[in-house]
């Protein structure tokens, strides 16, 4: 019996088992940011994120939904970012409906580094596809410039001190300075539910930096059988910075929308939900969320302080060398 006659049923069996996943790959997922990734900077302006899902023919799929998970960059090797508790954590997790193959939202990326956006798509006919997008956000150049200037300043301070301390004198006077600082900054908040409308409820869990918080909007209709589709506009504003950190516009939701969202900064945020239901007045819910900040761990502070002190030590050495070289010449 020829070998090819044995191979045919084997291929058929393989095709039978591997067929559905191969069909699932027929969905194409594209991510677009506005502005483009190269121009994005952390904690600057909210970025418009747009997912496009198309079929094998390149046309956007009609209906479906996406599950989105956004993970923050992992901690760096030496230096921390200015939000160390955010590093390596889940920033956002939500379930969005697709409209003409698209899902749009706004998001303020808090720190520099490589973000990972995992997308799971399910179309109306049950076809599934997944993709992970990784994109790198560069630090604001102005911050690097400021850090450079501060470093030069510390070096010059050490240099001047090194020159002053290098003298052929004896018996140094000893000054002992002890600085004791204590701190107590605790803000505690309680869960609060604001119910401005009789037809919708906005619930936000007590929020804390470093952990994702549940944000839930729910339509309360007198009819228990069916809840109308509402077009929900949800925005989260950083009140101190006057920045939008998250937003979706006119998202079609069937009575309920919930997501996991991490508030990156210990400050007050305003969550506003505006729902438009055809044939009904606009429903608006609003809640101010005080987010509990956490003191950064010592391990995150040590590298930066060590770096600054090392610059002063270098300056001291350079100043002493400069003074000795001049006096010996």
């Amino acid at each position: 019996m020829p070998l090819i006659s044995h191979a045919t049923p084997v291929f058929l069996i393989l095709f039978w088992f591997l067929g559905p996943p191969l069909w699932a790959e027929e969905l194409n997922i594209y991510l677009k940011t506005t502005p483009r990734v190269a121009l994005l900077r952390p904690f600057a302006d909210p970025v418009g994120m747009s997912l496009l899902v198309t079929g094998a023919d390149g046309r956007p799929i009609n209906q479906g939904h996406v599950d989105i998970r956004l993970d923050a960059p992992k901690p760096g090797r030496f230096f921390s970012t200015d939000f160390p508790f955010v590093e390596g954590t889940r920033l956002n997790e939500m379930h969005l409906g697709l409209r003409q193959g698209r899902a749009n939202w706004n998001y303020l990326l808090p720190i520099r580094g490589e973000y990972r956006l995992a997308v799971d798509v399910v179309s109306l006919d049950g076809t599934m596809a997944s993709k992970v997008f990784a994109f790198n956000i560069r630090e604001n150049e102005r911050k690097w410039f400021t850090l450079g200037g501060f470093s030069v300043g510390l070096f010059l301070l050490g240099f001047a001190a090194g020159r002053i301390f290098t003298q052929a004198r004896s018996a140094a006077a000893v000054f002992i300075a002890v600085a004791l600082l204590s701190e107590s900054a605790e803000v505690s908040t309680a869960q609060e539910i604001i119910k401005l409308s009789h037809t919708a409820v906005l619930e936000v869990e007590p929020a804390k930096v470093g952990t994702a918080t549940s944000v839930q909007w729910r339509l309360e209709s007198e009819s228990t059988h069916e809840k109308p589709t509402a077009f929900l506009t949800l925005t989260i504003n950083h009140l101190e910075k006057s920045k939008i950190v998250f937003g979706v516009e006119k998202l079609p939701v069937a009575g309920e929308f919930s997501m996991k969202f991490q508030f990156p900064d210990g400050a007050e945020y305003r969550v506003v939900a505006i729902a438009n239901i055809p044939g009904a007045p606009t429903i608006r819910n609003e809640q101010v969320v005080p987010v509990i900040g956490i003191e950064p761990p010592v391990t995150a502070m040590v590298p930066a302080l060590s770096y600054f002190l090392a610059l002063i030590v270098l300056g001291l050495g350079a100043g002493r060398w400069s003074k000795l070289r001049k006096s010996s010449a």
Partner: protein
Amino acid sequence: MTGGAGSYENAFHLTWEMMLMERILAIWLRLSVSEQTAFLIKSGIFLSVCGATLFVALAASYPAVHDTLHNVRHALAVVPCH
């Protein structure tokens, strides 16, 4: 007017003699250190003061300090803040 014709020279000699006496006293009491040791002592004290100042300015969470220097901390890119 108490200063006479040679008062400036007298004051100079007096100051010089006082400095000399201080040095003699320091050596006699074994308080004198070498220039290198003096530099190390001064540098150590200076670094301690600088370290304490940097810690308070950039790392302490004392509200008054934190709120005043909050933007500076974020502007330095590598300083953690809550």
